[in-house]
């Protein structure tokens, strides 16, 4: 439809709907766009606007508008991209996956769509494929991207600690305030035997995380490093520090273990725990730490408003 023939009401609806959308007035934007669609039901731009506003407003019609837009303009990567997001917002992962796949076919450099596609693949159980898309997205982004955040977790779960560490470093440096990024670096460098990097990162984490109650977690990480390095004096010093925070918890066992490494007899009747037991307990503490930090990660991101 040419501008000449386009009725002024439709042009007006597009402009107003877009302005309202940009001003985050999504209900109003949707309403204006839908009124415009009553005049021009096949206007792709209005359909996309109505769909996007509908996604933000939580309107069930959003998917229909965007689906219609992709039928009218099957080569419009943007329309497919927005359809994918609308479907993902509804939890319709298989359909979202198809929409993002089409987006990427039309626009192979759409890094955001690749990231979405990676996640929809992961959400539908195609882990290796998902990781492939995420890796492509991360390559296009060069430095930090959402893809890297998920790649850290996925590579870790595959046991590919080197790859995981590489992305963890990107994430940690890009989001320097987020302790979870540094915990990943610290743990993964421990896994690949980069003990100096691990120790430095746990030190940094101890400095960074100022949440009361978290004090013992980085100490547990440092203890793991020193035990791996068999630096028993350093380990004993850290165990002593852990004891001051944590008089009845893990610190007691770790102190008993480090004392035993010096050949000291145990204080009580019980034999000191073994290195395997101590490491297991410390790793499990770090797993708890990961959970509490993961719970807070969202607090630094975009709003969730009901």
């Amino acid at each position, binding site marked *: 439809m040419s501008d000449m023939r386009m009725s002024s009401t439709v042009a007006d609806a597009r402009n107003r709907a877009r302005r309202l959308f940009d001003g985050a007035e999504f209900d109003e934007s949707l309403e204006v766009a839908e009124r415009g669609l009553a005049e021009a039901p096949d206007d792709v731009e209005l359909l996309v606007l109505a769909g996007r506003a509908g996604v933000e407003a939580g309107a069930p019609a959003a998917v229909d508008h965007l689906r219609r837009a992709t039928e009218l303009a099957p080569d419009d990567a943007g329309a497919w991209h927005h359809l994918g997001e609308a479907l993902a917002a509804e939890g319709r992962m298989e359909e979202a996956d198809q929409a993002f796949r089409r987006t990427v076919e039309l626009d192979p450099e759409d890094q*955001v769509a690749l990231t*979405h596609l990676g996640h929809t693949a992961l959400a539908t159980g195609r882990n290796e494929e998902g990781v492939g898309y995420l890796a492509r997205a991360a390559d296009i982004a060069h430095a930090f991207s959402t893809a890297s*955040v998920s790649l850290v977790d996925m590579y870790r779960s595959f046991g590919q600690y080197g790859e995981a560490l590489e992305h963890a470093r990107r994430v940690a440096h890009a989001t320097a305030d987020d302790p979870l990024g540094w915990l990943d670096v610290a743990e993964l460098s421990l896994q690949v035997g980069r003990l100096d990097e691990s120790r430095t990162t746990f030190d940094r984490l101890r400095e960074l995380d*100022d*949440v*009361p109650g978290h004090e013992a977690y980085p100490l547990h990480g440092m203890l793991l490093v020193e035990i791996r390095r068999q630096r028993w004096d350093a380990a004993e010093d850290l165990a002593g520090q852990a004891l001051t925070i944590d008089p009845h918890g*893990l610190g007691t*066992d770790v102190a008993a273990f480090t004392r035993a490494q010096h050949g000291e007899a145990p204080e009580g009747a019980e034999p000191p725990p073994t290195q395997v037991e101590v490491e297991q307990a410390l790793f499990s503490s770090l797993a708890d730490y990961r959970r509490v930090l993961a719970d807070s990660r969202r607090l630094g*991101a975009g*709003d969730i408003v009901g």
Partner: protein
Amino acid sequence: MADLATTATRAVSTEWFRCPACQAFVYHKRLKRNLGVCPECNHHFRLKLSERLAQLLDTDSFEERSGDLEPLDALSFVDSKPYTDRIRDAQRKTGLRAGAVYGTGTIDSLPVVVAAIDFAFIGGSMSGAVGEAITRAAELALETRTPLLVISASGGARMQEGCISLMQMAKTTQAVARLAEEGVLFMSLLTDPTYGGVSASYATLGDVLISEPGAHIGFAGPTVIEQTIREQLPDGFQTAEFLLEHGMLDIVEPRENLRRTIRNLLDLHAAAEAARQNRDGGTAAQLPSPEGAAPVTDPAQITVREPWEVVQLARHIDRPRMLDLVGFTFDEFHELRGDRLFGEDAAIVGGLARLGELTVMVLGQQKGHTTSELMEHNFGMPEPEGYRKGMRLMRYAARFKLPLVTLVDTPGAYPGLGAEQRGQSVAISESIMLMSRLPVPIVTVVTGEGGSGGALALATSDRVLMMENAYYSVISPEGCSTILFKDASAAPRAAKVLRITSPELLALGVMDAIVPEPPEGAQTDPAASGANLRAAIIASLARLLQLHREELLAQRYERFRKFGAPGLQPVLPPITGET
């Protein structure tokens, strides 16, 4: 907040979140639609303060009053860096000035004063500024007699503020104590995580303590009580569910229900406040007009049944139980839980209820009908925790001048080892004493079994009624039979001589009136029985609400003073025929 918000950097900008509980990747817009709850496993993600307020309050209703609050470096504290730098970092990171906000807002148009802590600001730790926001909110609530809602999320004390942080525990506590003294509602929403100086001060002192599934709440932080290698912590340790089970919370509600739950509490308290402005103890005008049959005060009008038959009817598995009757009798009921001491005992159920426009506190023993219900409620036999929960709710009723209605249906207080260790006798005696001087009208109806002290602990009231086929006794007929007749099978005879039926107890003055039942018993028509119960409660309250506090307490004293007093105690004629 606005000026800092624009300069705040985002720690992570990501569109997909991995659920820490089930590891599913969740698209952020889906998470947003689901109020920040994982659609796969229901894990409740932590919310930012702005999100929380937006979820609970009416749109655009929040008017912040804490714009001038800022952390104060009273100690000129320096660790690896000056505390002032730490504050600046937190302000940049969160876009907040103080780590907590307070102001006014509405929930479904009902006014509320709100204070809230942001966990992202130095772990929500209790600074002077955080304490100030909460205290000022409490003072505003007191001044305007507006309910207070405080939303907490905190790792504990702010070490960098030393003893000034510690003193916030006292400062905030004394502020909410004044609300309790003056009967202004304080609702405390404890969100994940709430620890240390916050959980050990104002946050656990609300009239109602509310939390979300899976929220972590405790005194010592999670790592401090980290299990040693050879020790296991119980499942769900320090979660909201764990605390609920141990009597420390009233309500654990999924996020989607929180706004409605808080709204209902506000609504019930708005009615109570309206009554308070009018007269102490609610107003009779708020009561609905009764529709069931009127209570009976003439023993001759009650169908005479064999006492043993009455016992069987009172115990009938289909007889309407406390919660059934609450459903028929009241227009709304919102359960409150926990004794705040040791445990939640489901043998006693209590909560706020609405009767017409009148807000009342309801308490009673619950049994249930099926085996699993009976087990869950311990066959209506309360432990000390049940009575202590009851007393907590009685004090709640007194604080807000809410009439108290108790429904009694118990074989007796639970006679176990643990119950003795935790003071079953003391719990019962204290409950009787508390009721005897509670400065609000109390109506009790014995609806099924009135088992001795375990029943009386909820029945030291201004008006004591019983349903036609209920019984009330100092000992079970079976127990009496064994002890006095040396023969367990003589229970029917014991039932007869103990004089436990409604017409006999009415004649003895133990009962004030009888609630009629359908001819074959309440189990044949629970709804009709409920309507009669409702009518009886309305009639009793209508009279009691006319009395001033002093008259009420004097009459209650006299009511129980007369039992066994020469010249005052009616005496029954001997039973004719064979016993």
